């Protein structure tokens, strides 16, 4: 199992996971999954970052006399324990008995559930339809939605045999969603282009 983190906070629409290795964060927009009771929950990485473990205590700069970033960590090995990398995932669907549903699961993922990176097969199966785009576009996210959608689709396209055809198909779905908002559509399409 290619686990990349563990859930530390979970709601129906989003969950937060902590990475097992500092800085080993999944790519923004990438598809990840969590195995839950009788289903797999899928989500898109919508935010990530690294900060000190203790709330309110801000890390301080330590590299004034060091030659490189690695040297900073080498001289203060405790840093690896005092810092943590976390990422947030927007839930976009689930699979039950091999069938994909691109809407929210009935129950949220458990705390301490393992988060896995998706294999190309997982991605292909999940991205057969583009209904998940609606969930992404209807959420208030911390980063601009257009960025996230474009990043997500570009990531997914890599798993497909014909990335161009995949992006065209995705673009067509976006056109339908954005009918009446041509300028926003154009912004996203410009970011989809490779």
């Amino acid at each position, binding site marked *: 199992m290619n686990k990349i983190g563990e859930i530390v906070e979970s709601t129906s629409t989003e969950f937060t996971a902590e990475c097992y290795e500092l800085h080993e964060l999944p790519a923004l927009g990438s598809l990840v999954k969590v195995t839950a009771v009788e289903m797999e929950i899928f989500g898109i990485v919508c935010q990530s970052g690294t900060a000190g473990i203790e709330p309110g205590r801000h890390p301080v700069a330590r590299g004034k006399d060091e030659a490189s970033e690695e040297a900073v960590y080498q001289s203060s090995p405790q840093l690896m324990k005092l810092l943590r990398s976390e990422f947030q995932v927007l839930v976009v669907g689930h699979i039950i008995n091999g069938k994909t549903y691109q809407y929210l699961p009935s129950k949220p993922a458990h705390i301490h559930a393992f988060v896995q990176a998706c294999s190309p097969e997982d991605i292909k199966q999940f991205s057969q339809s583009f209904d998940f785009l609606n969930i992404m576009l209807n959420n208030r996210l911390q980063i601009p939605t257009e960025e996230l959608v474009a990043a997500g689709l570009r990531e997914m396209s890599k798993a497909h045999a014909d990335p161009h055809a995949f992006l065209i198909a995705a673009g067509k779905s976006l056109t339908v969603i954005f*009918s009446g908002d041509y300028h926003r559509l154009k912004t996203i399409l410009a970011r989809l282009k490779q």
Partner: protein
Amino acid sequence: METQPNQNLGIVVTGSVEKGTEVRLDSSASVEDMVVGRYVTIEGKKRRFFGMVTDISLGVTDEQITISPPDTSDTFTAEILEGTATYGTLHVLPMLTIGGEVTTINEGPQPVKTVPSHFSRVKLASEADMETVFGKEDNSRFFIGNPLDMETKLCLNLEELVKRSNGIFGKSGTGKTFLTRLLLIGMLQKSKATNLIFDMHNEYGWAGSFEGGKGGVKALKQLFPSRVAVFTLDEENSRHRGVSTDFVVRIGYDEIEPEDIGLLRQTLNLTDQAVEAVYQLKRHFGKGWMQQTLDISDAADVETLLQSMNIHESSFANLKRGLATIRRLPFLVAHAQTNAVDNILGYLDRGINVVLEFGRHRDITTYMLVANMLARRIYQRYQEKTEVAMAGKVTPPTPLVITIEEAHKFLNHDIANQTIFGEIAREMRKYNVTLLVIDQRPSAIDEEIMSQLGTKITCLLDNERDIDSVLAGVSGKNDLKTVLARLAPKQQALIFGHAVPMPVAFRPRDWGTAKSYEEFTHENSSEKKAEKDIKELFE
């Protein structure tokens, strides 16, 4: 991508019985492959509809796209927008329902009384669909051409066609004559009707001219020597053209009736009084009125004559000038030895089609005079024969189709009720005679006569009034207008009316190649052979 029969073109999105349906084109079908005049089927929930594409348009879901379209180099965006934010629509006029309910299967295609439901699939009509609608080539169906952009044969039921008078229209040089020749062959092969053709420009009997080609094309008698007789008004000219003629028509003055002169009022510049005088002179002199009128020269004689009949001198002078014009026609003789009418009837009775060539006499006066005179007498005979037949004694005469060119001259509003042709058109086929009228100015033909024409075939017309008059009373008129206006300037036509289940734009069969002649004459050879075999059997 080329469109294939049965390929999905799109789905119905809106519609009404009156205005037809809008079909949203699938993104896989390119607008550029669509053509107006094409046939499509619509798979409704309960029935299949058969219709014609009458308009094609481009749509956008968002007006902004037209204001700031993607950059031409941005093929990615263009490809995405195509079929989603930008799309093609077809306007389809459903015309028939085919299949579906049990009753309609039994009765064949039915006129539409409803519209297909939302999102019904639309496909290009297949050969099989076309056959269901127009029928196959058979004993009464003649292959007249191919629907535009289709390989399918368009077949016309000629038995049905000749039951009513019909019209062929189109501006000059669009293919009326070629089309008419084709229909004549069709009638000759597939109907019981015989034809009498008043051939103003000598194009139907022996050979016709061919624009843009060397020499001419073969006409009826060269292809069907035993079924066609060529009569001529101008023997010398016919001989000069190498035509093998069967009869030289001479017309006696004594055969000209006051009605014939009345008809020429406009072309001979006659006053009403002068025409009135003709009737009086006829009453006075009887059969020889024309000869006698022309002969009087003695002033005193003239005066007594005019006084006795109360004819004004100027009217008489006007009439004499007119008669002198006619007299100059070389085929007019004081008294004809042979009777043209009897001869024509003789041929027609034997099932032989008659083409009357006018030779050099191509002016409208001559044409009207002769066509009207002969047709009137022939029609009289048909009336008599039909009446006798109705009394139950003999079989009615075989149907006769009379072909006239420049029909508006005979059938315009002012004289349509004076010419025999007006009468034939109005009486329908009461006496087994119908017309095939050919004209380039249909708007000049009397409206009532136009409405009597059963089937109309029209090549390109560009005058708005002509288009309106041809399409008057047809359902889906506006849609057909678009189709009519888009016809090629030659060898394309739109047919609608009685003999076809729905309007079709088509390309008439080629005429003029060795292959075409071979096909025309070959068509019935198997039938002929059977006939011959039967004959031999009984000999």
